[in-house]
């Protein structure tokens, strides 16, 4: 299965045959100069920008955006070399770039007998460097009809591929149209939001299916209720291009809790951020019956985190959830580039926190060094 769908070109071929809407694209480009000529022709036919993608890539890696024909030659050579180095396979293909789309995906679950259900949509548009930061279920800015259409298409795509177990079908959504992107043949980080709005334990279900059991739930048993948002609490400095804070030690760790707050993580006081792995400390997933309630709960949860040592994405998220466009659900994959003000925050910036810091220092040192 991963063989079929992990290879993006094979996946596209299967989907095209099943009538799934897709962004115009190519098969694997031919090797050498012939491949480059294919690319030039594609650009002429569909217009720029176009995306040059590593066939074996994933997670946002191995993707290059090409703005004009004269850049194609250099990118083409480099993309092949990189793909070979990173994935051991230098195959690349092309897609027309959909400018400023929403990233919408559908959680699906299928058993070996082919019964396939979906757990509704997720909006994962808020990304940095093509990697997701914030995920929302359901994608509530879409009309119910659009949500239904995209979910059904996902099920159809999974069936077409003969897909088994939990997976994600990813789409680009632009102006009411959606295009199939890929099927992720694994449990994704953001599965928590789908769990929160359906009540289905995706991991448990996945293990049961892997043991050969049949799916015990039917589509009509699935009810989507409320809203869920996941925010990835990363040890990163958003102001410095989200540079990971590897090597720093978490001196203090206190986490939020209470109704509608879920934490998936392993962070603890004394934990040192590894230099070589992901900078994700903990996933904060919040549930609420209305969107406003959910955002309020996010604010409370973010404020109740105390993480001292590394810089984190928390102050950035606090800024994000107060953004009028975010509150209105009006965002696409270009959100961070078009909302630079989100990066204008100070760590612990309120006047009272500054004064409290001084009071803590007076307390710690047994006197005020600035008045001595």
């Amino acid at each position, binding site marked *: 299965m991963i063989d079929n769908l992990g290879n993006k070109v094979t996946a596209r071929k299967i989907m095209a045959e099943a009538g799934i809407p897709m962004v115009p694209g190519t098969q694997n480009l031919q090797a050498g100069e012939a491949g480059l000529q294919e690319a030039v022709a594609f650009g002429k036919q569909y217009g720029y920008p176009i995306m040059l993608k590593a066939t074996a890539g994933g997670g946002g890696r191995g993707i290059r955006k090409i703005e004009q024909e004269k850049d194609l030659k250099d990118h083409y050579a480099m993309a092949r070399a990189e793909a070979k180095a990173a994935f051991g396979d230098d195959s690349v293909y092309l897609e027309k770039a959909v400018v400023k789309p929403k990233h919408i995906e559908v959680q699906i679950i299928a058993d070996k007998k082919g019964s396939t259900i979906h757990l509704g949509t997720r909006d994962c548009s808020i990304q940095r460097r093509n990697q997701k930061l914030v995920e929302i279920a359901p994608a509530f800015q879409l009309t119910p009809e659009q949500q239904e259409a995209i979910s059904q298409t996902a099920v159809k795509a999974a069936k077409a591929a003969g897909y088994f177990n939990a997976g994600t079908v990813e789409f680009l959504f632009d102006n009411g149209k959606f295009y199939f992107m890929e099927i992720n043949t694994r449990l994704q980080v953001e599965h928590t939001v789908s769990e929160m709005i359906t009540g289905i334990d995706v991991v448990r279900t996945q293990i049961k299916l892997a043991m050969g059991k049949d799916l015990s739930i039917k589509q009509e048993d699935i009810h989507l209720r409320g809203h869920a948002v996941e925010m990835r609490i990363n040890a990163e400095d958003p102001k410095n291009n989200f540079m990971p804070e590897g090597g720093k030690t978490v*001196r*203090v760790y*206190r986490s939020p809790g209470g109704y509608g707050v879920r934490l998936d993580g392993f962070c603890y006081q004394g934990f040192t951020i590894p230099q070589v792995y992901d900078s994700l400390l903990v996933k904060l997933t919040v549930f609420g019956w209305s969107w406003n309630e959910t955002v309020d709960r996010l604010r409370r949860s973010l*404020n*109740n985190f*105390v993480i*001292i*040592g590394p810089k984190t994405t928390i102050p950035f998220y606090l800024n994000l959830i107060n953004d009028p466009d975010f509150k209105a659900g009006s965002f696409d994959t270009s959100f961070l580039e078009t909302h630079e003000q989100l990066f204008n925050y100070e760590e612990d910036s309120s*006047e*009272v*926190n*500054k*004064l*409290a*810091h*001084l*009071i*803590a*220092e*007076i*307390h*710690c*040192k*047994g*006197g*005020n060094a*600035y*008045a*001595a």
Partner: protein
Amino acid sequence: MTRITQDMDIASMLAALRQADGYYITNTARDMSQSDYKNRILLHTDLLAAPAREAAGYFSLEITGGASVHVDILRKQVDPFLKLELLRQAMPNTMFQTLCRGLNLFGYRPYPANVIRFTVREFAKYVDVWRTFDFLNHVPNMQAVLEEVGKAGKINEPCICFSTGPEHTDAYYVAKVGEILAVTGADITLCIKNHGGLGTPRRIGALVNAIKQAYPDLIIHYHGHNTDGNDVGRITEAVLNGAKIVDASDHAFTGYYGPPAVLTVIQTLKDHGKTAVGIDEAAVIATSDAIRDQRPHYAQFESQIKGFQPTVQIHKLPGGAMGSSLEQAAKGGFLDKMPDILHKELPKVQEELGNFWSVTPGSQILWTTAVSNVQHGRYESPSGDLKNLLLGKYGPFPFYQPADWIYEKVFGEDWRKVLAEQGGAEAISDMDIEQERKTLTDRLGYEPTEQQLVIYLQHPNDAVNFYKFETEFGKAYVLPPSIFLRQGGFPLGETLSFRDHCGKEHMIEVGPVQKSADGHTNVYLNVDHHERVYVFEPVKPAGAAPAAAKLSKEEIAELAKAGDFRAPFAANVSAVSVKAGQEVAAGDQLLVLEAMKMQTPVVAEAAGVLAVVSVKVGQSLQPGDKLVKVDVKEG
């Protein structure tokens, strides 16, 4: 018989003063803070006192100037301009008064004329009465300030500094008043600045009388200190002889070296048939009632020696310097030598150095010289400022020049040559203020305001530190002394409440303190019902760095000859004039050390190339610490 308010024009104000049958009072809160609390009374306390002080009807409130501008940013972490702005909001009718050291502004050494004018212009936006003095009574040293105050339409109050001794005659002072009036014209108030609280009541009465005989229309403002406990006597004689304004402050805070209590002055003069014009006695009492409970929080800054000091008539230290001098003695471990220093050496040094007025910066020069004379031998280690005084950099000696042997001791055998070549007041060239603005912008990372620039021009490093403090810790003036000056930490569970600069009320509950194995300290606070943790790096235990081997004075001098410069005494680095790799000639200034507010340059003894600079500006040094190393050129 009317109260004088801030909105009156100068002419009607002066007319009211001249016609008054009684006298007016200036509340010298700043001088009280400086003399009896090492300048630490916080804006928080002054704001508590503000409504009652406003109602009390003073001629003016002396609330800025002297050393307070520097201490505001250095130890109180309050913006000197914001302080005036907030007090003005709370006290719309009361005039604000400053004490300006002429050429030396609010600092300790002369500033360029354009800096003086810029500073006066900015402060004059808030300050109505400008008391200006020069410690040598050298009128040209006050000229730039007097002119700018005049231009700003504020009240000029030039001073004659007062002292005692054979030279300090009525004739001398009356002539000095004439010299001042020739510069300012008659529309001033003249201050008799008795910063030491010297002389008897009779002496002060005679002086006021002598001046009034010569200049009957001149408004005299008597300023004294209560160091010997007898200033109410001097004030009484001053008023009975025609002084129209006198200085005192609130009895809840009066101590030993500052002003006497307003209420005592009023009660005493009432019995002489003299009324305190515009004063509401009930409001005077209410002021002290409003701030009395704050005084215990300042106890740590009160004098090391309790009680009045009638021996001030011998040592003549100004009230404003008593507290800091005793503090230095306590910190320096020579409190036991104080009787020798104060009662024997200091009077001797006074006389030897020309019997000028012991007030800033002259008082610091006299004091440090006396201390150094007792500790290191007479005139054995002269400070840079003493040298400048002897060279006449501050102005001419008023009565006589010190004896030749002092010059010889300080400058060596060739002292006549040194005096001929370097003597006399130097014209200080204007500073490139725009260049300084750029430097400050770089250091702060943002464009400074005019006010920030003014403070920076006077105290560059301390100003930058203060503005960085504000960025990090906010506007800390909102904290009461019970928090800001707390010693020994807060008990677990104590609730601290205050109102921030924007007027928002906050509550902080003190939580536990936790030490981690690697030495970090976590302080838990409940801030407005949110738990917060503040982590502090381990403090390096004192003595962790290998202590520098004690070097004798001779060894330090020997090392310097070989190019290895060591700190000759405990000091802070106030400037580094050279960079590693630079060529230096004999006599070039390498860096400047500052101790007890006095600066001492370190100069190259021989030509060479600078190999290492081991210190940076602001660093504090112990005797023997490495400063710079010069590879001395052979031959």
